[in-house]
């Protein structure tokens, strides 16, 4: 494969996403899985909801806002490569009654637009939905400039900002529905757009309530976004070794589902968090705060990307490198259980 093909395979282009490269994070064939349903689902919702507008910053081909633009061109705004202006303009539109979805790479939405999200969206309570896609290190060999490993930590410390991660296509559909009637601003974190299916149907979600996607009794893996599917794979592998694993999809980062965290500690006696992000301040930190403050002393480990700039490599290689694929997570879980003293 030439380097040009490599780029298009990884990157944008409506014809490419989810079609050319059928290998996902863990090697699953994703051909049958809708890539980005973002534009298509919003276009459908907008047929009946005149409040919906979509903004992007010259990435409509990447995030499939084209699917919205084709159906509702009068409610589509491409601001060019100007993310700060996009987010603040969205806030201005929200002040006039619209529900703007402003989408760009997570790196540019959350890091470049952090102050606009805080000051113009969260603080005045504007119903702007900032959609950060290609989050984590899913941009692979594009390198640090295009990775958003800090976004969960940065977004969750902003007051009056709801922070959620989409797990798969059906999950994203549910989040987009929820977003229409949710008060205040939201940061919606999407993966690369080809995340393998976790939810066979559109789930009935509530902000602040995590989804238990597999039950178990020896350990709970609390994962979010792109890491829920490999966490389920890990649970399957652990089951073969006689370890019963609960998997909680903590898509709701802020507010966190504290009950689900404390129940996991109480019922399974060990907690492992898994996220595609820098370990400083993200999901694992949020869960640690919750456990420690509640006095829950159980074997606990945060798993994610260490506090470093990741090396260049294709996404799948990076997930394997950081043990964020199914086998890697299973190995980390075994290490944790060994420390618990119950292990095999």
């Amino acid at each position, binding site marked *: 494969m030439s380097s040009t093909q490599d780029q298009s395979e990884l990157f944008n282009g409506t014809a490419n996403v989810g079609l050319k490269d059928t290998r996902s994070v863990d090697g699953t064939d994703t051909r049958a899985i809708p890539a980005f349903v973002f534009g298509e689902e919003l276009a459908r919702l907008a047929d009946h909801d005149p409040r919906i*507008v979509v903004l992007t910053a010259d990435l409509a081909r990447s995030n499939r806002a084209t699917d919205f633009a084709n159906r509702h061109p*009068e*409610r589509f*705004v491409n*601001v*060019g490569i*100007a993310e*700060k*202006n996009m987010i*603040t*303009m*969205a*806030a*201005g*539109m*929200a*002040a*006039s*009654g*619209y529900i*703007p979805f402003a989408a760009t790479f997570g790196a540019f939405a959350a890091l470049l637009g952090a*102050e*606009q999200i805080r*000051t*113009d969206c969260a*603080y*005045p*309570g504007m119903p702007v939905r900032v959609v950060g896609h290609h989050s984590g290190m899913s941009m692979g060999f594009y390198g640090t400039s295009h990775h958003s490993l800090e976004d969960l930590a940065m977004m969750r410390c902003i007051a009056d900002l709801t922070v959620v991660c989409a797990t798969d296509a059906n999950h994203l559909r549910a989040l987009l529905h929820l977003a229409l009637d949710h008060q205040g601003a939201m940061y919606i974190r999407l993966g690369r757009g080809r995340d393998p299916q976790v939810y066979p149907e559109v789930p009935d979600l509530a902000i602040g309530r995590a989804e238990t996607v597999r039950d178990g009794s020896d350990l709970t893996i609390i994962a979010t976004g792109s890491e829920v599917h490999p966490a389920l794979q890990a649970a399957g592998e652990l089951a073969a070794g006689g370890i019963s694993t609960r998997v909680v999809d903590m898509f709701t980062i802020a507010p966190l589902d504290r009950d689900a965290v404390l129940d996991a500690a109480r019922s399974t006696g060990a907690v492992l968090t898994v996220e595609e992000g820098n370990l400083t301040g993200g999901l694992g930190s949020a869960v640690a705060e919750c456990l420690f403050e509640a006095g829950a002393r159980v074997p606990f480990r945060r798993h994610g990307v260490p506090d470093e700039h990741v090396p260049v490599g294709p996404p799948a290689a990076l997930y394997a490198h950081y043990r964020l694929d199914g086998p890697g997570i299973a190995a980390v879980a075994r290490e944790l259980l060994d420390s618990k003293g119950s292990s095999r």
Partner: protein
Amino acid sequence: MPLTSTDQPGTDEVARLADRARFVRTETVRLTRIAGAGHYSAVFSCAELFSVLYYHQLRLDPSRPDWPDRDRFVLSKGHAAIGLYPVLADLGFFDPSELDTYTRLGSPFGDHPDMRRIPGVDFSSGSLGHGLSIAAGMALAGRMSGSDHRTYCLLGDGELAEGQIWEAAMSAGHFRLGNLVAIVDANQLGIDGFVRDVMAAEPIDGRFAAFGWQTHRVDGHDIPALLELFTGLPAAADGPPQLVVADTVKGKGVARMELSPDWHVGNLVGADYDDVLAELGQERA
């Protein structure tokens, strides 16, 4: 009702607006004493702009602060809020006595305006460089929803160093937001000195013109000239966004503050307080 461009504002109207500009300045002096510090000079430069816009130009209904077809006003230079609050109270958006809580713990009225707490504030501001994007979003929303309202945005000249201003300027020109009016209070000073020395913004009109705006330049303290300009703006329709460069003097009206970098934030105490109120033509408070 706003005058049309063919009407000649009478001397009574000009005197009324001059009186309201004086009111903006004296109230700023009064409220600053409550807080113990305030942005006098950045309000004094735009007192006539506040007066002409709020008492003559803007289409507002204080009994309906959320009226969808009202004109919008975004105070991008949010530190001038201390001069805007008394205007909103005077127009009837809220009881003027509420201003006595200015900056006290839990007050709706801080140094920068909070739209959630203050009726008549169309958007919260304070972080320089954001307001023109807010206003562009509002103007775009107005066009999308079929409303004929205008959106006005008041910027500082020092603020033009913020890069986001130019993102917004580019987008407003590109989207032909003819219902958007940006006003630059070109009062010549930032915190560290003259804008021309710290980071030159001129030619402001030429720069905006290059971004597709129709530009105007006016003495920002000349009420008849401001009236003529604002009432003569083209219809709020698809077309170039409108830029008004208002040449002003930071600290205008109080000799010790005019073009002085020492008064960006200050506090008048003792006899100085009385002297300044006297200079502004107000009886001792």
